[in-house]
């Protein structure tokens, strides 16, 4: 083996023992792609954000945080995205729990819950404006049944955006939660039932702990969707004030002021805030059981 003529084979053999061999070439196209189209632009944006049009390397970040109108977008975004994502996940749990078993019309209900995915932002926005607007059916019903004296204002403000996030986010959250729930072995609950646990204890002691990692993943994905809310914040929200989310600030910097360094700085701040929340959720998740519950997450 120590023959001087075959160092290459020897080296290759050593690598193969650790799992590195020719088959890994299969990864190369995807890696090249992710480096060229994701990592490179990301680091390009990062360096660009430290090269503002005027001032020192950090002046664009300073500019963002010193301007309360700009800084406020972080808070506005979180105030919309966190409750919306939380509601979507929490509402999905009991509904998915009811839907696990076998019953008539299950497929129909699942399909109905999935259909809102096809609505798209614009139809949702138009629909919310028509339906919840001052002369829409919702307010007409409230007025006709004498529940309110004057139309409730639910569009062009916080609530419009919130509802649009629930409509687009809930079906997605529901699908994921249902998927994780059906991955939990039903024999575990049956075993607990034979030992005399009622449904409440079966749920809190067995299903919920096993579901927790899946819920964390679902929350993260729903939160990403809600955090990047942009079209609906413009269409059903109040894009100059109450719902001026951070993606809107970044977009305006890039495409209305053509200040790419500043836009990149805002994008970096946005990504950072979002990753911090996700890191917190995932860190909390790792405190729960992370074995095989059927899900990969």
């Amino acid at each position, binding site marked *: 083996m120590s023959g001087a003529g075959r160092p290459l084979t020897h080296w290759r053999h050593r690598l193969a023992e*650790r*799992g*590195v061999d*020719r*088959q*890994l070439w*299969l*990864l190369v*196209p*995807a*890696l090249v792609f*992710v480096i060229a*189209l994701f990592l*490179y*632009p*990301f680091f*390009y*944006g990062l360096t660009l954000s430290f090269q503002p049009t005027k001032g020192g390397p950090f002046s664009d970040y300073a500019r963002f945080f010193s301007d309360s109108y700009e800084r406020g977008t972080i808070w506005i975004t979180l105030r919309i995205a966190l409750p919306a994502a939380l509601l979507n996940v929490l509402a999905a749990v*009991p*509904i998915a729990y009811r839907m696990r078993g*076998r019953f008539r019309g*299950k497929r129909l209900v699942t399909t109905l819950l*999935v259909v809102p*995915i*096809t609505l*798209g932002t*614009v*139809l*949702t926005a*138009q629909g919310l404006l028509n*339906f919840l607007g001052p*002369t829409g*059916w919702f307010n007409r019903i409230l007025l006709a049944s004498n529940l309110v004296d004057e139309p409730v204002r639910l569009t062009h403000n916080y609530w419009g955006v919130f509802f649009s996030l629930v409509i687009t986010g*809930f079906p997605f959250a529901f699908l*994921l939660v249902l*998927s*994780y729930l*059906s*991955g939990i072995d*039903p024999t575990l609950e049956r075993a607990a*039932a*034979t030992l005399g646990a*009622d*449904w409440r204890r079966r749920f809190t002691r067995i299903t919920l702990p096993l579901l927790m990692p899946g819920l964390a993943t679902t929350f993260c994905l729903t939160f*990403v969707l809600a955090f*990047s809310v*942009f*079209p609906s914040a*413009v269409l059903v929200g109040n894009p100059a004030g109450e719902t001026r989310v951070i*993606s809107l600030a*970044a*977009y305006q910097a890039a495409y209305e002021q053509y200040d790419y360094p500043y836009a*990149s700085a805002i994008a*970096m701040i*946005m990504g950072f805030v979002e*990753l911090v929340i996700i890191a917190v959720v995932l860190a909390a998740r790792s405190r729960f059981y992370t074995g095989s*519950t*059927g*899900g*990969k997450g």
Partner: protein
Amino acid sequence: MATTTQAPPARPPATSTDRRRRIVARPAAWIVWGVVIFFFLNLLGVVASVLVSSFGQRWFDTWLPDGYTTSWYTRAWDEFALLQVIVVTLEVSVLVVGLSLVIGVPAAYALARRSFPGKRLIFLVFLLPILMPPITYGIPLATVLYKFGLAGHMSGVVLANLVPSVPFVILTMTPFIEQIDPRIESAARMCGAGLRTVFLRVLTPLLVPGILASAILVLVRTVGMFELTFLTAGPDSQTLVVALYYSMSASGIRAQQSVDAMAVIYTSMMLVLLVVALRYVNPTQLVAQVKDEPEH
């Protein structure tokens, strides 16, 4: 796949627990279904108001429009050059689906079958584009694409849409590949098949359900992806969502009903895609591979 049969829910054996369970469970069940029905009623209102409005002649302060017409559809079709927009949408989506499968499936295979140093890091890099809001990486990406003269055309839109699609293919394909018995490949290799032959003659036929599933999901995602297309599209490379957004945010110029008509066209297109998708994908099995049939 078409049937979702599962083991019946567990029954407590003793009658005393049974009675207790019923008292506790019934109100909860009613509340859950009540909330679901309330959600659906409002959703129905949202969708129906757009649908009615797109057929309505004039609709101001009344329960229903004054009269009905289909002229908004023909008007939207002509005004927005919808045919061209739909053709662009389909071209972009088909290119994105094809490229992301070609790039993603081999990588998913390597990640599903092999363990090697740095695997977790590579997995994380593939996960990041899905965990990041599109605007965050979209703005630097659009800047880079403009620098190389790629944005503003179809190529830029396709490249930008590939960023979340390739990782998505990798993540959805990995469990499908893990399901396939590796001994099948070993047998093929024993018979003298090379990696390429194993891939094309053995694995691909077995993976057709998974490939179809992720292809359709990528298709639905790409048709619906707003941000990335919005940031990189030029006037003649807009997809339907972006064209819709422009027509709605420039309100006042267009009749609202004509935007409604366009939104209905978009949604029907998505609905067709979703119905096709549901024929191949059981939506409840996206994350976890659940056995459909109860074991005997």
